[in-house]
């Protein structure tokens, strides 16, 4: 019962957030709506008995990536975008896309959606889906990480190190008076 309730709220949150990300003209607002969407996805993970994943999602995605995005928005002047009015009286925010791009994107999205729906539902409806009571614990995840997927685990640590160092180097402020070697 509780799960169902949680599911509906999380689903609503996710979808609403996603659609709002599409529609909003303001970059920061869309970032926040992304945040909502990610919280909804975490809730969905909970309904799927993936507690660890949900927690990781909340910590990493919500608390890390969205914050990072916000920082980047602030650093690149994404909040100072003024609303322009063009000659037809339509409002448009620069860099957020105009009608033409939305229509184009909507079309391609529709096409892809149609194809995917067709594939998925035609194959899924044929096969029987069984919801099994599969409970996982953090312990299971940890064991799997360090036994079967140990290589990926270690590599991911290298990856994160690389990302860290790379991001630090790339985003370092320019010293224009330095002579390049």
């Amino acid at each position, binding site marked *: 019962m509780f799960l169902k309730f949680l599911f509906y709220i999380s689903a609503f949150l996710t979808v609403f957030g996603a659609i709002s990300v599409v529609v909003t003209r303001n970059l920061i607002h869309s970032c926040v709506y992304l945040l909502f969407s990610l919280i909804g996805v975490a809730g969905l993970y909970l309904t799927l008995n993936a507690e660890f994943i949900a927690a990781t999602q909340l910590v990493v995605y919500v608390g890390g990536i969205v914050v990072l995005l916000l920082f980047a928005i602030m650093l690149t002047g994404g909040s100072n975008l003024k609303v322009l009015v063009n000659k037809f009286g339509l409002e448009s925010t620069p860099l957020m896309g105009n009608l033409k791009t939305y229509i184009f994107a909507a079309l391609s999205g529709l096409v*892809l959606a149609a194809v*995917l729906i067709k*594939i998925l539902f*035609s194959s899924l409806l044929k096969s029987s889906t069984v919801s099994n009571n599969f409970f996982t614990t953090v312990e299971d995840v940890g064991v799997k990480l360090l036994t079967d997927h140990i290589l990926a685990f270690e590599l991911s640590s290298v990856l994160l190190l690389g990302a860290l160092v790379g991001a630090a180097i790339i985003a370092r402020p320019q010293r224009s008076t330095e002579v390049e070697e």
Partner: protein
Amino acid sequence: MTYSIASILPIVLLPFFAFAVNSFIVKRFTTLSVILSCSAIFGSFLFAARIFGDFVFGKYNSDYYIHKTFTWFDISGGGLTFKVPMGIYIDNMAAIMLLMVTGVAFLIHLFSTFYMHDDKRYGRFFVYLSLFTSAMLGLVLSDNLLSVFIFWEIMGFCSYSLIGFYYEKEGAGNASIKAFMTTRVGDVFFLLGIVALWTTVGSVTFVDIYKAIATGGLKDSILIFGIGVPVATLAAFSIFMGTVGKSAQFPLQVWLPDAMFGPTPCSALIHAATMVAAGVYLSLRMFPLMELGGLLPIIAYVGGITALGAATIALVQTDIKAVLAFSTISQLGYMVLGIGVGAYNPAFMHLITHAVFKACLFLAAGSVIHSLHDHHTHTHVQEMPRMGGLRKKLPYTFLAMLFCTLAIAGVPLFSGFVSKDRILGDALVMASSSKLYWAPAVMGFIGAFLTPFYMFRMIFLTFFGEPRDKDLYEHAHHEHIQFNSNVPLLILSVFTFGVWFSGSLEGQGIVKVFPESKYEWFQVLVEKPELNKFIGRTSTAISEPESKEFIEHSHYDPNHGMSEEEAHHVHHLHHLGAIASIIIAFSGIFLAYLMYVAFKVNPGWWTNAFSGWTKALKNKYYFDNFYIDGLIKKLMLPFNNFLSWFDMGVYDRIAIDGWAKVNQWLYSVSRWFDNLIIDSVLVDGSGVSVRFFNIIMRTIQNGRIQFYFIVLIVVLVSYLLSFKPVI
């Protein structure tokens, strides 16, 4: 005796071998080459004498023959046969001819060692003589028309070389070309005749031709310009034209007088005894064909015209060799007349006897000329007005020449009388049976009157009277007996007696000198070819020795195979002819005596009275003018110019230069093709098309990430849609 290659072929091969060897060594070893030539011909004479002995003294049969063949080449195939056999055919006629040719040739070789001794091309003369004798002997021995033609042409070449032997003399080159070309005209017809016979009969061997005539193979006609001409007439006429050319008959007689530019021994051998006789020999061999083609009246007329015409021209000649040349033409006319009236044997006998005495006459003339050396011009004198009274200086020459002149004049007891009288007798017989033959007979008799006249005119002018050129007479050498200058003459003159040829006075067995039937050997052995006998004749291969035994000897038939009544009529006419010719001969001699010895009749009066006639005779009836100015300059030269204009102006310009233009046009087309299609379209076009597609494809890579994303989606969608199990 066995007849094998070793007993027959040396006749031809010895002189040919001498020719081949001499042509290399003649400059260095002149004497050796001369000796080689002379001994080669003597060797041939020995072989020929052996064959003659077997034929005449051994077998003595008119049907005896030796026929050996080998296949020269055989290119039959695919159902068509084309086989060319070559071979040797010896019958009595050939045996006698062989002996005559080798004997006369040998004596002329001997004489040439004397006559040509001081010439700077002394050795070369013998080279040509050897080649010539080998060709003549090959012709006598051949059994088919093709090899006759081959040897005929070789002799023509030798005649050309020998006439132009003194090439420094002004007219000699022209004379040799004239001789060659004139005989060429006849040879073209001869070749056509050979071809006509070959296509009709399928073979050119004499035996096969006789067989075909006997079995009716030559009966059909072919259409020429819509007129049906029997093949036999066509072939016979064409072959007779060969005789006309080679034996200097009317109208192709123009070359023989000019042939006197050559050395005298060459004139003796070639233009008196042998080569010109080859034409008559050919006609004799082809006599059945001439009979079948109905050509005999034409032959008689040609012979008669030649005999009379040449005799008349000889009346006014002053060069001793010219007199003899025209006399040769005239006597050849008699031989051809003999063929024309059907007198096969007499014509052949006249050929043999004429060869002997004409050769002797020429050699004697050569001896005379050689002895008369003009110190001022350093030439030998040939003009009779400058001679005279040479009887004392050149007694032996005079003796030989006298005998031969008596022979040619037709004085009884000499060979010339026997043969010429028989021809005239047969002419009379034919004239009595048909009006057509009146003219030839009359011409023959008139010629028989003129011949002794001009021959004795020559004798009297040369040997009798006072010498007209004292200086020349003083320096003339007195003659001694010498093996190579007098002895050949005397030997030849011995054979001008009639007994060698016939045991009877007039060759008819009427007045017998020796009452032996064998002494009509000539008449018995040489017979008109009886065609039916040839149907069963066989030939052996040349490699096999052949020895034929005929037991039965032929006998002389005084009636010549005719009925008693006919024979009587014929004999009567022969008598008449004989008496007439004796009277005519003696009257000719008497007239000459009156004119040139006794000076009772003035020849000058005659030349003035008939001055136009004399002028015509001196110009040889304007034949040369007609041929050169009329025919060649007016007809052939413009035609030649037209042809050369056509060849160069039209054909060269159009075909060859025009072809160059076509090539140029083709080149420009291909250049256009190369430039436009290959260069512009393919080479540049490939670059342009790549650039074009580049410009199109470039838009895909425009650096816009969203565009890449769309492309990605498109690819993904298309992949998903194409994945069959899913859809």
